[in-house]
């Protein structure tokens, strides 16, 4: 969040002012706007423009928590949300750690989260961007069709206030374009996608997005199902970012406290290869998810998670920190006004190595370059560590890239994969995800195909 939102702040303040003695109250007020354009064959398929707003109120009394929300900011609705939240308090179980965040004095690292250039960008220009992306993508390769080309932007302002002294507000906006492709060769069809993100449309690299979308689809034409065997995998930066996303669940302090992390009780121990150094740093302005304030209104900050393979600690909200006898790391995450904050990594980054992906591949005797994974959410269990995911990519033989392969899985366990890391590339890619991408070599992974 950056810059204040006085109107929403005053709504939140008024709710907090109605707290009864002995009652903790937190109000989170938000308003958002979105534009969504989809182009198909040169025409607008749909254009969505809308605004939404709402409030969520949390009440804590005697260690019991109640919550309610409504998708409106009418005075009557706000009064009934507060009444509902109070009523809900009596049904919670007393929890000695329940409570709101308190100001901790950590300085906010300001981020540039608002773009006037985007706010002022004309609607026709947004439509034209999506049309241009569709044209550029089709021009890359005659085998490529465009399923849809999209422009989306959103802006949001939010304010939070609490009886424990939190009082912050701000606004942020962002935009992206994306394109889905189909590549045909005879009876065979393969798919791809490309995207570009920015604080404002001026930052888009449309040509790169078009090229990626075309390449992703065409490179899989003629792909076969590989044999089943143990191989070395090289993860594309985009895949590594997804892998780190799965891993983040085990670094979540709330999961640790509740016995749902494979890293519980392992701080100070070696959990990964000595090459593996991981931080969560939302104060790095290069990160797509860089932010200045967390979901409870505390300053976002840099946290070391794994250093040289040794587990350093976990990320916390004020609740999970209280349970663990430590301080919040500024990692409260809130999905909008309809829920209370949880815990999550905000902007993970793996310390990069020095070599390019091509150099990493040159050292692999028998392996696969994994360019896409499918089913990470269904095939990886971050509690047990069992890891199995559908994948597609290119075979690697004697240091050279070979033919495309698809409809296979790669499997191991998260615990083993972290120790089996062979090298980390130097090709950091700040993707629009909660982790930065970088090429990653992992040995001894089971590939299941034919």
């Amino acid at each position: 969040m950056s810059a204040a939102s006085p109107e929403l702040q005053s709504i939140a303040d008024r709710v907090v002012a109605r707290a009864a003695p002995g009652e903790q109250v937190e109000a989170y007020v938000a308003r958002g706007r979105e534009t969504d354009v989809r182009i198909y064959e040169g025409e607008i398929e749909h254009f969505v423009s809308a605004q939404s707003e709402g409030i969520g109120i949390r009440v804590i009394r005697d260690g019991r928590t109640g919550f309610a929300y409504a998708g409106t900011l009418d005075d009557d609705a706000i009064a009934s949300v507060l009444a509902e939240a109070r009523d809900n308090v009596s049904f919670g179980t007393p929890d000695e750690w329940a409570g709101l965040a308190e100001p901790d004095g950590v300085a906010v690292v300001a981020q540039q989260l608002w773009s006037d250039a985007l706010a002022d960008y004309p609607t026709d220009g947004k439509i034209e961007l999506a049309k241009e992306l569709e044209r550029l993508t089709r021009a890359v390769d005659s085998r490529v069709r465009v399923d849809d080309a999209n422009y989306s932007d959103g802006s949001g302002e939010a304010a939070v206030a609490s009886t424990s002294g939190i009082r912050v507000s701000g606004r942020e906006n962002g935009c992206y374009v994306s394109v889905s492709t189909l590549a045909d060769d005879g009876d065979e069809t393969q798919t791809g996608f490309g995207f570009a993100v920015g604080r404002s449309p001026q930052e888009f690299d449309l040509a790169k997005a078009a090229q990626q979308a075309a390449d992703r689809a065409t490179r899989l034409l003629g792909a076969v199902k590989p044999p089943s065997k143990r191989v070395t995998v090289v993860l594309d930066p985009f895949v590594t970012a997804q892998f780190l996303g799965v891993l983040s669940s085990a670094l979540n302090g709330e999961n640790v406290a509740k016995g749902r992390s494979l890293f519980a009780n392992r701080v100070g121990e070696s959990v990964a290869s000595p090459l593996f150094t991981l931080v969560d740093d939302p104060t790095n302005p290069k990160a797509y998810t860089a932010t200045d304030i967390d979901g409870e209104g505390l300053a976002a900050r840099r946290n070391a998670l794994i250093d040289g393979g040794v587990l350093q600690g976990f990320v916390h909200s004020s609740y999970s920190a209280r349970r663990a006898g430590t301080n919040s790391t500024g990692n409260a995450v809130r999905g909008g006004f309809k829920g209370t904050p949880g815990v999550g990594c905000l902007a993970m980054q793996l310390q990069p190595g020095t070599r390019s992906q091509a150099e990493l591949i040159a050292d692999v005797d028998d392996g696969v370059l994994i360019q896409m994974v499918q089913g990470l959410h269904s095939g990886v269990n971050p509690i047990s560590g069992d890891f199995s995911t559908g994948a597609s990519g290119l075979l690697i033989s004697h240091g050279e890239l070979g033919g495309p392969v698809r409809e296979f899985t790669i499997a191991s366990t998260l615990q083993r994969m972290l120790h089996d890391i062979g090298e980390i590339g130097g090709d950091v890619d700040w993707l629009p995800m909660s982790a930065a991408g970088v090429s990653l070599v992992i040995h001894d992974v089971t590939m299941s195909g034919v």
Partner: protein
Amino acid sequence: MESPLVRLAVVIEQDVLERVLATALRGGGEFAEVYAEDKSSTSAGLDDGRVEQVTSGRDRGAGIRVVSGETTGYAYTADLSEAGLRIAAEAAGAVAANGGGGNRTVALTRSAPHPVNRVEVYPDTVGKAAKVSLLQRIDSAARSTGAAIGQVSAGYGDSRKRILVANSDGLLAEDEQVRHLLRISVVANGDAGMQTGFESLGHTIGFEVFAENDVEELARSAARQAITKLRARPAPSGSIPVVIKAGSGGVLFHEACGHGLEADLVGKGASVYRGKVGEQVASPLVTLVDDGTMSGEWGAIGIDDEGHPSQYNVLIQDGVLTDYMWDHLRARKEGHAHTGNGRRQSYMHLPMVRMTNTYVLNGTDSPQDIIRETPHGVYVAKLGGGSVNTATGDFVFGMTEAYLIENGEITEPLRESNLIGNGPQVLRDIEALGNDFAMGNPGTCGKDGQGVPVGDGQPTLRVKTMTIGGTAG
């Protein structure tokens, strides 16, 4: 507390709807629609032995779309006053304007109700204490299943939603949708680490669902899964025969072919089933339906989110592709009848073609025989989530509870892994179909960023081979 619900029909009068639709069409659009919803919900979560929080929610708003040629304009608002609706109508109409202009009047005719689900006990008539006590019963039952149980989390959710759809063809339809859902996750601790178990129960009926089902047994089942998996060995790696237990593999059909039979994807040439109507696309054993009228099931709806009554639609008959699923836009374009499959997540979303309850009808084999006639294979007792690439048919989903089949008998439990296959291939490779049909767990189907509730089901069946993504040679 007094029920926060108000009848939407009272909130938006018919003459207001008619004027708003006329406003939407002023720019020259050919079709306009108002979709309004009013939803109240309660949820409660128990974790780590505590009821952490009870949440009450209220969502109310309207989405207006205007179609002109191939272009759709859409705007939504939480302001249901005539002024608020007209602002949204103008925003939606501006995009779909073709310069034609003119004044069209719309006369609405109220559709006959199409009730599919029968609700006895509405959620807003049940005290929060009764809802919370379900969670406490689940926690006790799961923890008493075995000393290895380390953690239990359970979630309760109910919702009551009224929807109203009015469009410039004169349609005016309303429906009320009630849902109750329980989710149970259990962690068991063993010498070699942790394992998990999961169960859920969801129906489109009232709170009576928890009297009609044994929630403690559901909790014990989740706990037993986790405990059993503590002694699981790594799943095999490679292509082998797979037997899927009744009611645990409907998601296979949802992913392997359901999405590919959605007319919007077919129309764009993004489905392997394009141009295949009338062709043999599956084993002759397979008859697949999508059935929004299956009372009480998670995907059952009275009307879809475009105001059309839900239907029983046969998609594949004895292995032959009979039809796709349709929404208003695609049906209008192709001159096809809509099939009650136009759905959306909420008033903030455009409708598109979506499944409801998708299932395979019974075959004739006994499930015991299907297992006995499998010398070597994998028995899948529970599938997790999945996904598909409709253009290639390649799909993947997680096996959350599976066992080895050796010499026709179910033996060792297996650790979790993904199953992977190609939809058209797997449909042809179904070589045995049981007579023990069962519906599966309630699901949320994601498409284009929107989630909608769906159901699935099938009898026990065997697929000739599928690729199991384990680590054992």
